[in-house]
């Protein structure tokens, strides 16, 4: 009844210091009091046991996508990651994506993380 979803655009992919790929995402407008923000992350095929870590540039964990119930070789699906409002500054949030497996952390390829979007949701 109060569908206020906005699909947002993202840009500014850049490799930064530290493992992972940093993506800056921008809200198209100010949030209102009864709205929240989520990331939608679409994954391709990743190895069994591999995870995609998501954190802010300052290292605050936003979540770890840990696919389960995926047959080997299949794409891992799309996941929703809630974003605490306090990590959004000036309608922007930068997140670092890290492929984690066997104690190795690296930037995911474009085939492993196929898309990431920021969305406004009602609360």
């Amino acid at each position, binding site marked *: 009844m109060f569908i206020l979803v906005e699909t947002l655009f993202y840009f500014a992919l850049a490799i930064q210091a530290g493992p992972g790929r940093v993506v800056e995402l921008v809200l198209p407008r100010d949030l209102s*009091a009864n709205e929240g923000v989520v990331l939608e992350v679409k994954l391709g095929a990743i190895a069994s046991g591999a995870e995609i870590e998501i954190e802010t540039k300052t290292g605050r964990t936003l979540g770890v*996508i840990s696919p*389960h*119930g995926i047959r080997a070789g299949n*794409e891992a699906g799309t996941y929703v990651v809630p974003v605490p409002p306090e990590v959004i500054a000036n309608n922007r949030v930068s997140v670092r994506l890290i492929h984690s497996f*066997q104690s190795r952390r690296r930037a995911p390829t474009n085939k492993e993380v196929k898309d990431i979007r920021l969305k406004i949701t009602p609360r």
Partner: protein
Amino acid sequence: MPKTTSPFTRRDFLKTGVAAAAGAASLPLTGRAFISPMQTAKYTRYNVMSPGGQKALQSYAVAVDRMLKLPPTQPQNWFRNAFIHIMDCPHGNWWFYVWHRGFMGFFEETVRNISGDSSFAFPYWDWTRLPEIPTGMFDGPLTPTDLRFEPYTRNFSVFTSFIQPAMMSYWNSLNPAQRVQLNTRGYTSFDLMWNDISGYSPSLKQGVSGNMAYAITCGSRYLSRDNRGFDARTNYAVSQFIIDSGLAPTQFYNPDVSLSFNSAKTPSHNSPAGANSFSILEGYPHNKVHNYIGGVGPIDPGPYGNMTNFLSPVDPIFFLHHSNMDRLWDVWTRKQQARGLPWGPSPADKPAYDGELFLFYVNGRGEYVGTTRAIDVFSMQRFDYKYEPGYGDDLIETTTSAVDDKGSKARIRGVVRANTATLAVPSNSIREHLAEPRGASLVAEISVPHPTDSSPTREFDVLVNAPAGVTTADVNSPYYAGTIAFFGNMSHAHPGAEARFAVPLPKSPQAFQNLGAVNSTVNIRIVPAHGRGRTPIIKSAIVRSV
């Protein structure tokens, strides 16, 4: 099943129970009118740490021990039950909850019969409040690392010799409808299914350790009695913030997964999960708890413990984990009911959802259930159980027909999240309030802690439905409802003492938009008057129709 109209009238009373995310765990559970259609259910699924939960664990251990010893040709054999999961479980689609409700419900009957405990119901593991494996789950047959499992799982050859002939025989007895579903799943032959047990990859022509659903006894669970807690990432996945976010969607299903309580709509519950969208609760706490218990991360690249792959029900913790997932579905359902919102699929979706066939269940007598539709196991009434309250119940808005103690006036109550009191107010009441020619017909009562020496700000402006960026307001603001002010020497205030203020809601249409729905969300905040000082946390808020 779907409810599309509100059961409330203007004079009905609606009380919200939105807990502060940071403090929900400490909120009292007593004295609340929990909505449950199952208050009189025969069985109760208790928190595993409660006396009822501990008693249930004893019966569970008896049943596991006995089921381990059953021959593999019997459907109630412990491992045979786990194969139901590998052959039929949905993940990443909207039948995730309902299929597991049926799986658990029938299996609960099995445990009841085999243990001899006629009152048995699965306890739930509320990992938000207890982010570690409950200690009792390391005792005897309640851990798959126990010696009782060794005769069957001490190595892959032993496991294969034990279970494969019986499974092959069962496979050959399957009917055409079951075969069609297995084909959809990608199991067009027994060997292809068995590859997921062994981890063999036909395309790579070699085994992949991380894909192996079989787990050796000593490696069947990563977490141990001395290392039973979650790591930071798993803790985050079960945190109040994540659970609250997962319970927030107001639609049973929406193609936009960010707005959907359930995962993706697919043609079949056996559709491969790969390209689908996972709801927050399935994709996050459900998945992460499964995987961490199996050792994803610490023991990459596997082989992992049972919980990580398709034979996860081999680990007895599976059913406590899924009991909590099922409980959260119940919490979400009651939240929806309290708000007068649909808690099932839309009328357009209902035939497809309700009619999905589940063909592999085994009942408490060890018989194949046969054709079961999703709607047949949708309700908890089918298995006649209810839940002892746990995390999330405080988020439910409870309806009550209680009459205000000062007269028969409507009262709407909210508690605070992130210092914003949120209330669901009937839109009709707001329209009447705006149209009221004399004064206000809606008045807020706001309780805030008394200022103290260390927090001496004593005047606060009340904002109603102000956008997030609005941090101050004057009397001309459409969101301004008034200023509450304390008087006197602040050092006399008792720690924790509260004061309640009545504030008429503003009569500004800008503050009340989107009145098209039955109920409208009203957010109330307070900010320091004059734009300076610290803001106390609102303790509670009530809106009365006067």
